C-alpha cells in the first residue's frame, strides 16, 4: 500500500457488486487507498444510494440481480446531470459487444478481474482528474455566463442612461429632423444630438468616437452635457466647439478622440453654419436646383489638439426654406461587401443621383447598403434636417428655483467690448444670463436673445468690421462675406461695441432698454428699412426681425447706435 501515490482528496466511492467476496475485497482495497466506500449488491440499491449520498465515483458490476449495471449506470448518469460522475465497470467481459454496451450505458472505463490494486488506484486517480476537469469547466462556463449576463445588464443600463442623455434635446421632437441610427450605434461610438438655441436656431451634432463598446460610449456623456448646456445658454458654435475639444482632450486617453460635425441651422437667417472635424462629407441639398454642396472636413477631430492649436473656424452656407442638410457616419461609407470592398462615397453619390423622392433618401441608402452587403452594420448613423420656417422661439430651458420676489428692477450697466475681446469672445450668453435675472423677461428670452444677437452681429460685422451686407445677395457673395468676416476679425486691432442696459420699474411691471453702439461708418436707416422683405435676397432680414420682436426700436447717430425696449407686465 505504501507504494501507492497518496490520495490528494479522499473521494466517496460507490461499489455495486453482487459477489460478496469481490465486494469485500474491492471495498477493503479502496478504503485502504484512503477513500470512503458505499456498497450496494444490485443496481437498484446502487441508484438509491447514489441519489441519497451523491458519491463522486462509481465502480459497477455489469451483471447483477434486480437491476443490472447497465441500467443502473444509465440512471446514475442521468441523475448526475452535467457533473461528471465517472463509472468504472467491474468486468472481464471480453466480447466487444458487451464492452460497447457498457460504454453506451455511460461507462467511462473498465476494470478486469482479478483485481490489480495498482491499476485500480491509477484508474481512480485518472477518473478523478477528469471529474475535476469537468467540474472546473462547468464552473468556468457558469462564471462566464454570469459575467456575460452582468455585462449585458450593465450595457442595457448604460444604454438607457445614454439614450436619455442623447435624446434629451429636440432630436425626437423636432418635426424637421429625420434620423436613422442602428440600435446599438451608441456603443460603436456614434452620437447624435440636437437642441434649440434661445433664439430658435438649431444645433446638431453627429459624432463618432474612436473605438467600440463602452469605452467609445463614455465620452458621449460629457460631450452631450457641454452641447446641451452651451446651446441652451446661447453660445455659438465656436465657443461650444472649444469647450468640447478642451473637455475631451482633458478626459480622454490619447488614443481616443471624437470625429464630429457640428451644425447651426438658422431658419431666421436662412443659413447653416458648419464645423466638420474628421467626419465623412455631409451635404447641403439645394432642393430648387438639386445641387449638393459637400460639407468637407477641415479640422482634426475633437479631443486631439490643445486649446491653443484648436481651430474653431466654421463655414456658412445659405439655405432656402425646404433645403436639407444630410450628415452620415463612416459606418455608411465603410460598409464592406463579402470581398472587403467598401461602399464608399461614389456609390453614395449614385444613390443621391438616383433619388427621386427626397423623403425616401434614407430608405434608398439603406436599400443600397443591403444590396451591397446583405446585412446591416451596427454603427450606421444618418441624419437629415430640413430648414423650416416658423421655429417657435423657445423660452430659456433652465428651470429657475427663485420666486422672482428678489429680482432686481432698478439698475443700469454698460459694457465696452474692444478689439481683442471681439476677436474671440461672444458676450451674448453672459448678457442673456444677466438679463434673465429679471423674472419678467424670462418669458421673452428667445426674442430677447434673437434681438441681442442680431444687433450685436450688426454692430460687429457692419459697424466694426465694415462689411457690406449687400455682398450676401447670392450664394457666392455669401461665402465671400463670411470669408472676409473671418479675415477682418483676425486682423482687428481697434474698434469697440458698447452695450448699455437700463432697467426701470413701471406702474404695471417693468421696462428694459438695451442700447448697442459701435464705432463704424453707420448706415442709412431709412433706406434699409424701406427695402421690401424679399425672400430671395439674403441680406436685410435681420432688421425686420428686430422690429417684429421688440416693443420699440430706434436708430440714432447715423445708424451707429440702436436702442430697443422690452416691457413686461405684473408678475402672477
Amino acid at each position: 500500500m505504501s507504494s501507492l501515490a497518496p490520495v490528494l482528496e479522499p473521494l466517496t466511492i460507490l461499489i455495486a457488486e453482487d459477489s460478496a467476496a469481490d465486494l469485500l475485497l474491492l471495498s477493503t482495497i479502496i478504503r485502504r487507498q484512503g477513500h470512503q466506500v458505499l456498497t450496494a449488491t444490485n443496481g437498484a440499491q446502487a441508484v438509491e444510494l447514489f441519489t441519497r449520498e451523491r458519491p463522486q465515483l462509481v465502480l459497477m458490476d455489469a451483471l447483477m440481480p434486480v437491476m443490472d449495471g447497465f441500467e443502473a449506470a444509465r440512471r446514475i448518469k442521468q441523475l448526475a446531470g452535467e457533473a461528471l460522475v465517472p463509472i468504472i465497470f467491474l468486468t472481464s467481459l471480453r466480447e466487444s459487444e458487451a464492452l460497447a454496451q457498457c460504454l453506451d450505458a455511460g461507462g467511462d472505463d473498465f476494470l478486469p478481474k482479478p483485481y490489480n490494486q495498482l491499476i485500480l488506484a491509477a484508474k481512480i486517480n485518472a477518473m478523478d482528474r477528469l471529474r475535476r476537469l469537468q467540474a472546473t469547466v462547468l464552473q468556468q462556463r457558469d462564471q462566464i455566463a454570469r459575467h456575460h449576463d452582468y455585462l449585458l445588464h450593465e450595457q442595457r443600463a448604460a444604454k438607457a442612461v445614454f439614450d436619455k442623455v442623447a435624446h434629451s434635446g429636440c432630436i425626437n421632437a423636432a418635426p424637421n429632423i429625420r434620423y436613422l441610427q442602428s440600435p446599438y450605434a451608441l456603443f460603436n461610438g456614434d452620437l447624435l444630438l440636437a437642441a434649440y438655441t434661445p433664439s430658435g436656431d438649431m444645433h446638431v451634432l453627429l459624432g463618432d468616437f474612436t473605438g467600440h463598446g463602452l469605452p467609445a460610449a463614455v465620452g458621449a456623456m460629457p460631450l452631450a452635457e457641454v452641447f446641451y448646456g452651451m446651446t441652451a445658454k446661447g453660445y455659438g458654435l465656436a465657443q461650444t466647439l472649444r469647450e468640447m475639444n478642451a473637455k475631451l482632450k482633458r478626459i480622454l486617453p490619447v488614443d481616443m478622440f471624437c470625429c464630429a460635425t457640428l451644425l447651426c441651422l438658422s431658419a431666421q437667417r436662412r443659413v447653416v453654419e458648419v464645423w466638420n472635424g474628421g467626419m465623412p462629407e455631409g451635404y447641403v441639398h439645394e432642393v430648387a436646383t438639386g445641387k449638393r454642396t459637400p460639407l468637407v472636413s477641415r479640422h482634426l477631430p475633437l479631443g486631439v489638439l490643445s486649446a491653443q492649436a484648436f481651430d474653431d473656424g466654421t463655414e456658412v452656407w445659405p439655405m432656402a426654406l425646404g433645403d436639407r442638410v444630410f450628415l452620415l457616419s463612416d459606418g455608411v461609407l465603410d460598409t464592406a461587401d463579402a470581398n472587403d470592398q467598401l461602399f464608399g462615397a461614389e456609390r453614395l453619390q449614385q444613390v443621391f443621383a438616383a433619388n427621386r423622392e427626397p423623403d425616401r433618401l434614407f430608405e434608398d441608402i439603406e436599400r443600397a447598403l443591403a444590396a451591397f452587403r446583405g446585412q446591416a452594420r451596427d454603427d450606421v448613423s444618418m441624419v437629415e434636417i430640413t430648414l423650416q420656417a416658423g421655429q417657435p422661439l423657445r423660452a430659456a430651458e433652465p428651470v429657475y428655483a427663485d420666486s422672482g420676489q428678489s429680482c432686481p428692477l432698478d439698475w443700469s450697466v454698460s459694457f465696452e467690448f474692444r478689439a481683442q475681446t471681439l476677436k474671440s469672445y461672444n458676450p451674448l450668453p453672459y448678457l442673456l444670463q444677466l438679463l434673465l435675472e429679471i423674472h419678467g423677461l424670462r418669458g421673452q428670452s428667445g426674442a430677447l436673445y434673437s434681438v441681442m444677437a442680431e444687433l450685436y452681429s450688426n454692430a460687429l460685422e457692419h459697424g466694426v468690421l465694415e462689411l457690406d451686407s449687400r455682398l450676401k445677395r447670392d450664394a457666392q457673395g455669401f461665402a465671400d462675406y463670411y470669408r472676409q468676416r473671418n479675415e477682418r476679425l483676425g486682423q482687428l486691432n481697434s474698434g469697440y461695441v458698447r452695450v448699455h442696459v437700463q432697467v426701470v420699474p413701471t406702474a404695471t411691471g417693468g421696462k428694459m432698454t438695451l442700447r448697442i453702439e459701435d464705432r463704424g461708418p453707420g448706415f442709412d436707416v431709412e433706406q434699409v428699412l424701406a427695402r421690401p422683405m424679399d425672400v430671395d435676397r439674403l441680406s436685410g432680414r435681420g432688421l425686420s426681425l428686430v422690429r417684429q420682436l421688440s416693443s420699440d426700436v430706434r436708430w440714432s447717430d447715423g445708424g451707429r447706435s440702436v436702442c430697443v425696449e422690452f416691457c413686461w407686465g405684473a408678475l402672477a
Partner: protein
Amino acid sequence: MAEIHLDPDVLSGLQEVMEGEYPKLLDTFLDDSQKRVEALRKARDDAKALGRIAHSFKGSSGNLGAVRLAELCRRLEDGSAQLTRVDLDELVDEIDQEFALVRPLYEHERQRFQL
C-alpha cells in the same frame, strides 16, 4: 495452467491487502462459492442462468486465486450459449469437483488464523 488449483502468490497478496479482514474474505468466498455451486446444479436446464452464475463465479474465484476453477467457469460462461446439454452438464460437474478440491485448501489457509 490447468494444473494450478490455487495460486499461493495471489493468497499472499490478498493477505497483505486485507490484513485483519483476510480470514473474513476467505470465509465469504467459501460461503459464496458453496451457494454458487448449488445454484449451478439447480440451473442445469437453464443455459442463460448457467452463463450468468458462471460469470460471477469466474470473477470471484479469479480474485481469490482459484485459477482452474476460474478457467472452468470461463468455459461454462463462454459455452453456455452454444454447448450441448451434455457438455454443459459435464462442465458443471467439473466445477463441482474442482470446488470440492480447492475448498479444503482454503479451509486449511483459514485455519492458520484461528483465534
